[in-house]
């Protein structure tokens, strides 16, 4: 069995879910197992997840509406990879499930984390920082009026 802990697995599953499919496609291309080494326990299937929120942001739970989600499960050797991806992209879920299986393999884990997951995480962080900087450019500094500067 794999020695990988849950937070580490959550970390790579997050990176795989939040990245565009094209980034997974190119990052994983050199690492993907041959098709006959993969046993699909669940081919990609699109369905709905009801998104819950809280009244006032922190109060009682309520149902906000449904999100399209695609899931897939694959066995590669003795590792079983799962993917749950927002949206209806079957290929994205396939790639994420394969990556999840491969990343549980201690022999390949470090290489894939450094070569595939870390660049995806960097891209997510860069995208968020850029959006945040753009928003910050429209920040209003009302207090400068009070100080009379």
């Amino acid at each position, binding site marked *: 069995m794999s020695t990988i802990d*849950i937070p580490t*697995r*959550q970390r790579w*599953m*997050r990176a795989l*879910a*939040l990245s565009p499919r094209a980034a997974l496609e190119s990052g994983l291309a050199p690492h993907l197992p041959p098709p006959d080494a993969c046993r699909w326990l669940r081919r990609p*299937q*699109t*369905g*709905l*997840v*009801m*998104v*819950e*929120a*809280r*009244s*006032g*942001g*922190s*109060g*009682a*739970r*309520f*149902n*906000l*509406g*449904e*999100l*399209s*989600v695609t*899931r897939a*499960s694959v066995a590669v050797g003795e590792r079983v990879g*799962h993917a*749950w*991806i*927002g*949206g*209806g992209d079957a290929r994205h879920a396939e790639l994420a499930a394969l990556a999840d299986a491969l990343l549980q393999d201690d022999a390949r884990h470090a290489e894939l984390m450094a070569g595939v997951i870390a660049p995806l995480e960097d891209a997510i962080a860069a995208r*968020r*920082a850029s*959006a*945040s*900087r*753009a*928003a*910050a*450019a*429209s*920040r*209003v*500094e*009302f*207090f400068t009026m*009070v100080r009379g500067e």
Partner: protein
Amino acid sequence: MYVAVKGGETAILNSYRLLARARRGDAAVPELSLAQIKGQLRHAVDRVMQEGSLFDPELAALALKQAAGDTQEAVFLLRAFRTTLPRFGYSVPLDTAAMRVRRRVSGTFKDVPGGQVLGPTADYTQRLLDFSLAGTGSANLEEPTALAEPLPERLPCVLDVLNREGLIEPETPPPGDPAPTDLTREPLMFPAARATRLQNLARGDEGWLLGLAYSTQRGYAESHPFAGEIRMGEVTVSIAPEELGFAVDIGEITLTECQMINQFAGNGSAPPQFTRGYGLVVGEAERKAMAMALVDRSLRAPELGETAHAPAQQAEFVLCHSDNVEASGFVQHLKLPHYVDFQAELSLLRTLRAGFDAKGDAQ
């Protein structure tokens, strides 16, 4: 009552063909792509997702294209499509305080922690038609002036300031943090819990909510609102699938959240404090989030000991008429054959008229 009619197959097939041609318009003009609709008509896509209650921009764009821009028809198409999909489960409740904010304003405090962030808003435009957009490639696409510092990762919530002083009613989960009623699974029953009302309002017609919200401001319910905080940005969605046994992030959605602050409630045991109205909608949709927050607050009248005398305070009236798929269906069903019904009415009227005329002749 309406009855089934037979025949007309060729006419119906031809109506499909006419519809398809009308949708396409002038064939010499390039066809719209879904990417164009998603990218350039984002508010229309957001509205279809809200009222269709299905968060999928690709499908919403397709529905808009198929419906030729008829928002409510597109909503109907999404609602119909969702019935074909399996339900995988429920998400972990969203944490909107962790929103990656692109816009955040407060109408109550000028110095909010983290500052006011205007974001991509039309509020400060002159609302003059921009004829440069009539052509292509003539839009003015300057980058915002560069600012080195991004916003803080978590922008503090404005209402926390009042909450810390105990000046606003606290918003905490009830004991046991129970799962809410799901209106896609259970019928709407009265009295409806606030969680049920919020689900109904979140998928409710924006025009309906806007009109009701406006009525509360014009005096048909006294809630004296202030926009405590409006924020828009991206929030991560997580679920905890059975086969994993732990939560995973599966994507992010754009949300607009409105926290209304309203006038005091209090009684012998509770001190006077501000009350809350809450709006949360998918996409960039400030008008709907604000309207939802106003109507949420007005519907809380009975639980806050207020007299419910105005339409916007009456849950049955508000919630039973908010769904535009139901409303549009019932209004438009009048187009269906009511021939037998109408013949009965006509014959009754002829009888009455004959009686009336005979009486007139006799006099």
